[in-house]
């Protein structure tokens, strides 16, 4: 079993007006095979947490720690974090000029496993994963994210997760911009990978809708850079009823 442990994490970004603290001390422990949902209003720091885990250069960790089975994640470069088994499904995946999906997936797999995947097996794996995500195989010849619709970009993120088999995945608002069919397909993908690999999941979302398809073991409510409340999935149901207002009023 693996553990991703975040302790008293404080993160800031540079702004024109100087550094601005976004995360104000986050504690979170995720074990393999667990799903943690992080919910919260816009601007509460949910995405910042995702980027800080992945190591985006724009986010400065001021204090605290992130460890993966005791290894210091913050000391690792971005690619080393992926090699350690972390994966971030991004909210706004960028277009990569001139790189086809097929070439990208194969290069990433090779980088993670240290050797090129066996062609026949790999082609089969890719096709199967794409079929189950209802992605046409013509996607493979398109440039990464270029001209993809919002839904296609999200499927492509989950496709990568399925093929790269991380130990922990952070899903940053993977549900936003998805119609109901795409939401179901993507959720099935997440459940499939979780089951197959005992993957730990940190699911960041605004809405409770995705939680009908992906059952969280824990729900954390994020407000103003901190976890304001924690509970089981019944907390999500309560949020559905009441919204975030009572946290926001309390924090004023």
């Amino acid at each position, binding site marked *: 079993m693996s553990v991703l442990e975040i302790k008293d994490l404080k993160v800031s970004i540079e702004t024109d007006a100087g550094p601005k603290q976004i995360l104000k001390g986050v504690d979170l422990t995720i074990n393999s095979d667990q799903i943690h949902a992080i919910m919260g209003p816009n601007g509460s720091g949910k995405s910042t947490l995702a980027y800080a885990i*992945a*190591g*985006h*250069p724009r986010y400065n960790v001021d204090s605290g720690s992130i460890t993966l089975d005791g290894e210091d994640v913050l000391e690792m*470069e*971005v*690619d080393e*974090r*992926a*090699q350690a088994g972390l*994966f*971030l499904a*991004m909210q706004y*995946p*960028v*277009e*990569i*000029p*001139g*790189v*086809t999906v097929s*070439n*990208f997936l194969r*290069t*990433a797999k090779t*980088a*993670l496993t240290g050797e090129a995947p066996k062609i026949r097996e790999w082609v089969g794996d890719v096709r199967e994963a794409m079929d189950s995500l209802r992605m046409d195989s013509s996607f493979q010849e398109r*440039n990464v994210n270029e001209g993809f619709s919002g839904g296609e970009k999200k499927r492509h993120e989950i496709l*990568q997760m399925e093929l*790269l088999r991380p130990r922990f995945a952070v899903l940053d608002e993977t549900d936003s911009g998805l119609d109901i069919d795409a939401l179901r397909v993507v959720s099935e993908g997440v459940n499939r990978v979780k089951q197959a690999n005992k993957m730990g999941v940190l699911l960041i979302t605004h809405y409770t809708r995705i939680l009908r398809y992906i059952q969280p073991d824990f729900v954390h409510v994020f407000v103003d850079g901190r976890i304001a409340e924690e509970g089981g999935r019944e907390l999500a149901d309560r949020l559905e009823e009441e919204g975030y207002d009572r946290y926001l009023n309390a924090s004023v």
Partner: protein
Amino acid sequence: MTTAEKFVPIQTRSERPTSFDPNDYERPTGREVNWKHTDLRRLAPLLVDEETENVGRDGIEYDVASLEAGGYLVESAGHDAAPRGELFLPEDLPSAIAWKRCANALHVQIPAGVAVDEPLIARLKGLGADIHANAHIIIEALPGSQATVVLHHTGSVAYAQNVEIIVRENARLNVVTVQDWQDDTVHASAHQARVDDGAYLKHIVVSFGGGVVRVNPSVRLHGEGSETEMYGVSFADAGQHMENQVYMFHEGENTVGNVLYKDALQGEGARSVWIGDVLIGADAVGTDSYEKNQNLVLTDGTRTDSIPNLEIKNGNIEGAGHASATSRFDDEHMFYLQSRGISGEEARRLVVIGFLMEIVQKIGIESIESRIAELIEEELAAGAELAPASKAGA
């Protein structure tokens, strides 16, 4: 010329002034439409109308052994030796000087009906950055012939070059020019081609080395059903200026033309210029035409200009389009690829090779493609220490 005429902007590409006499051109100032984006300061040696033959120092060593052995070289003595000038008309000062100062053209001729399987490679080596050289080269594919002719340039020189390409009826010709110069070279080249009835020309410009490299290819789809594919790929490093002014003229009926140029840039002062003019003439019914330029900016400190122009003089065509796109490889791209476990070095390689290979693969000559692969490796090594472009607008 009255003052009023002189300052009327030239609207139609085919109406650009032409002359064989250097004295008919004023020294360019950098305000002219065809010089506006060029590094005239560094190209200055090519604007001097001086004797460059039999002056005791040749600027270029021509290794044409393989063409000679196959009997594909034809003697061309003097300016009037046909087919020299059958279609070529200098459009700027360096080209007019090159015309005047090169007495005997290098004339490559593919005999009628003959298909030459092996690529014919002419190796042109510059012998000194301080030497001014001029050349007129004719590549003539006689009716029904098929061949691939490569001009591979290396070394250092200040070189003005005219390349006159004649693709006669039903011939199929590939012309590849590779600029693999040292970085102290300045090179201005005017390629002018005519494609006759049922004939086909694939024209590829590859520029990796050189200080200022300006290769301006122009293809006139003259014959009925004639076809061309015009490709270019360049990589501008710190201090390099890579320029292509591409002109495709659909003159005959039912002609097909496709233009695709890709330029990568990295390092302080790297510069690329692409101007693509397409003219669909009044008689060119049934034309199918497309042109595109794509640029990839790998670091800050570069500049690229991309100017597509399309002029259509008849309404009865199959299709005509033009496009230009410049992408940046910035730190967001780098983050995305690295977050999938791909190292920074590998990420850059993936993007650069992915971008360039589309053109390189069209060359189809193993020895040239492997040389280009080496050049790409050199560029990647040179770029390894450079930070990716900062995010646009950040």
